[in-house]
């Protein structure tokens, strides 16, 4: 009798908990997690989007959302990188290659009911070009600055002049975009979500260009956080930061084929295992960044694992200003021959990964199958080192920790294999593991206190310059060389308007690079995303440009 009350209390708590559980579970059964209605897809993402105005975004999660809500003048072909019609039906350059005429689609409306037309295009380009104050900050308009350089009036003298010059309305469905020079980036870069066309009315109504605060305290306007207004298959509905969900819904007035899903929810689940568990339990119906080790098991369980065509590169960078011996081509060649890249790809990278013969994926125009190749040859590596008088070489090898990148799933594993290969050739390795940000990126891309390091790149758009031009078109601390002839050839290629001629120059450049061997291209890895067993209609894109308007549940 003595302990009757505590016992009773525990019993009451337990019964109450079970009762609530029962109620809640019955609710879940009735309303489900998007499963019962079959027109709501919940997709797990690794991070929160940062901003809903893609002009101000450079992170993948913001761009993923933007791709559903907005459209660009040109867009990548489904599942590929070629430039295809978007809001523009066709485009042609003039004889100088600096003025491009875009013929626009008619009958397109923004989500706020206003018309899309040539004037709207110019409002958008002028908004970016005439940006002032904090909108010129490198972290606010990263992609504009990446592609176009500067602005109408550069407030920072360090900024380069703008590539974009002007936008002229010819008629309601024809617009001319003029540039200050011929560039390899046009028109391919215009398919970046950062060049999405917004509703001029919404831009004005929600003060989209008013980035307020001070440089160390930047505040985005309400447009960028609550009112993104485009022409895409989905309309923005809500962003619940308190529960890490962003909801968009079908645009019933879409000009083309309407989305099959009524609602699409992006839910942030930063932990990879948690994403997998949520998929298996049915709480979500898809997620991105599937771990390489999970690809086969998930396929085996019947999930739709979609492998994106590889559009990235992992490379071993060699800094010629690091150890002086690295300025000797024979030493760099020895490093290339010493690496058993095939074994590395087979054991440490996801299915479908391949050894890179150059710094450009084979799917991009300009890839050259005639480049000098450096197949694994340990003896040759040893001979070259001896010839160069570098038999007892010690190199600092940086690799990042606390990070996985689509091109580099497990940096430490990759480092260990490569270090073992190099040691076998007689090169002593001093391992330098550093935290990805800020230490690693700072250490490997500035200064000269690094010899070898792992880094890579995922392409933004389907032009070769976006890869090889990014790495080798100018002097960079990452590589520590100054090759005037190479830089000149890059400038020539960038300024060649004729695509065929430019691609020929890229081929030459790829051959030149692999002869000069500033680093060793390692691999191209296809990143994977997964969808529920009953979800179909999504095509994986090398540019992560998946559009979920075509997704549907199999009945």
């Amino acid at each position, binding site marked *: 009798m003595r302990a009757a009350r505590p016992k009773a209390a*525990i019993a009451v708590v337990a019964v109450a908990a079970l009762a609530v559980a029962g109620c809640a579970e019955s609710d879940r059964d009735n309303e489900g997690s998007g499963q019962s209605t079959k027109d709501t897809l919940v997709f797990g993402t690794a991070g929160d989007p940062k901003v809903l105005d893609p002009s101000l975004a450079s992170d993948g999660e913001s761009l993923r959302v933007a791709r559903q809500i907005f459209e660009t003048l040109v867009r990548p072909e489904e599942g590929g990188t070629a430039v295809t019609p978007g809001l523009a039906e066709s485009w042609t350059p003039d004889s100088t290659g600096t003025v491009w005429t875009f013929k626009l689609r008619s009958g397109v409306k923004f989500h706020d009911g206003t018309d899309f037309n040539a004037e709207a295009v110019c409002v958008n380009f002028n908004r970016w070009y005439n940006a002032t104050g904090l909108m010129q900050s*490198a972290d606010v308009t990263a992609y504009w600055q990446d592609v176009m350089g500067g602005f109408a009036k550069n407030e920072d003298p360090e900024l380069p002049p703008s590539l974009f010059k002007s936008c002229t309305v010819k008629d309601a469905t024809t617009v001319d975009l003029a540039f200050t020079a011929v560039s390899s980036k046009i028109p391919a870069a215009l398919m970046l979500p950062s060049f999405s066309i917004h509703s001029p009315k919404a831009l004005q109504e929600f003060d989209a260009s008013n980035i307020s605060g001070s440089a*160390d305290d930047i505040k985005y306007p309400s447009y960028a956080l609550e009112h993104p207004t485009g022409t895409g298959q989905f309309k923005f509905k809500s962003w619940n*930061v308190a529960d890490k969900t962003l909801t968009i819904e079908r645009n019933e007035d879409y000009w083309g084929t309407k989305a099959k899903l009524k609602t699409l929810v992006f*839910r942030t689940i930063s*932990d990879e295992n948690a994403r997998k568990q*949520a998929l298996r339990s049915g709480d979500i119906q898809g997620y991105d960044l599937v771990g390489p080790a999970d690809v086969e098991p998930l396929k085996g369980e019947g999930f739709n694992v979609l492998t994106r065509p590889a559009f990235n590169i992992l490379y071993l960078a060699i800094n010629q200003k690091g150890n002086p011996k690295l300025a000797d081509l024979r030493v760099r060649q020895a490093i290339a021959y010493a690496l058993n890249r095939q074994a590395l790809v087979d054991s440490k990278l996801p299915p479908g990964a391949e050894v890179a013969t150059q710094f450009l994926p084979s799917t991009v125009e300009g890839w050259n199958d005639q480049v000098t190749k450096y197949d694994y040859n340990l003896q040759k590596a040893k001979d070259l080192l001896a010839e160069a008088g570098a038999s007892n070489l010690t190199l600092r090898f940086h690799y990042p920790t606390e990070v996985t990148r689509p091109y580099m799933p497990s940096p430490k594993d990759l480092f260990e294999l490569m270090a073992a290969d190099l040691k076998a050739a007689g090169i002593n390795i001093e391992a330098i593991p550093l935290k990805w*940000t*800020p*230490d690693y990126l700072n250490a490997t891309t500035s200064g000269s206190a690094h010899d070898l390091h792992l880094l890579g790149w995922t392409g933004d758009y389907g032009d070769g310059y976006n890869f090889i031009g990014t790495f080798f078109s100018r002097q960079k601390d990452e590589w520590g060389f100054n090759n005037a002839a190479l830089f000149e050839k890059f400038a020539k290629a960038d300024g060649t308007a004729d695509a065929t001629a430019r691609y020929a120059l890229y081929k030459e450049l790829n051959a030149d690079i692999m002869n000069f061997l500033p680093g060793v291209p390692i691999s191209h890895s296809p990143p994977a995303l997964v969808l529920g067993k009953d979800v179909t209609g999504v095509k994986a894109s090398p540019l992560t440009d998946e559009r979920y308007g075509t997704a549907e549940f199999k009945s």
Partner: protein
Amino acid sequence: MFRFIIRRLLQLVPTLFGLSILLFIWLHRLPGGPETALLGERGTPETRAQIRENLGLNEPLPIQYGRFVKRLVQLDLGTSISTKREVTTEFLQRFPGTVELTMTAMLIAIGVGIPLGYLAARRRGSFLDHASVGGSLLGTCVPIFFLAYVLKAIFAENLGWFPTIGRQDASIDATHITNFFVLDGLLTREWDAAADAIWHLILPGVALASIPLAIIVRITRASVLEVLGEDFVRTAEAKGLTERTVRRRHVLRNAMLPVATSIGLLTGLLLSGAVLTETVFAFSGIGAFIKDAISNLDYPVLMGFIMIIAVIFALVNLLVDISYSLIDPRVRVR
């Protein structure tokens, strides 16, 4: 009592001032800066330098600190470098999740821990006693994230009884007023939303409760055993008071003082444990956000969040001090 509270609140000001200086120096002494995380592999030394300059990170530390204090006195904690949203807004959107989770864990820990500790003490040497002492030892040993994964694998993934992630089902179109989802559901009478929010709290709540539960069981047991041996308990029993009166007025009340102290201290522990639990259950709270802010060196978020948490921690401990006088009338706060 009133003067006591005012005095304690005033004492908080120099403490927070000192904390802010130490924190500011410590954060800015960490190598690197937010510009690298902001730009990733797309950054060049030039663009990183531009952002450092814009953020005023090249200025002397005292000047940067002065700017922080100037904003702080206007109750402005600045904006996040990475999300460009006000730190206060970020906090108000995320903190309710952590509070709901922490309170659930605390309710479980107190609701189960005190009765269990009491019973173990009253039946010292029994199976129940050994089981609770052994169980609590296990509770303190098992890492929270491991327990969270195990609970999730069994009860969510395999049995499907509980959701694996989040604070609320994505298909529920709930109205949010305070961002306390359970409270919002009750306020708006959206019962299904409230029940669903509770449902999402149970597994992470149990995982997070494991350590405080174990500690509360042990402290309660030890404390009750000590009080049971006191003369006044024997006297009370000898003078013929009922079992219930002795237990309530004399034993439990006296045994609760150390338990109350530990509950105050455990709140801090729970906030740190919440980081792991929130990550495993993709539960939106401040834990996961702070974790990201640390890796991105988002100074305003780190300064703001840690300062607010320090204030909350101090207030919880003040409440604990006040509760002493309610539990034990002999204790007078001065």
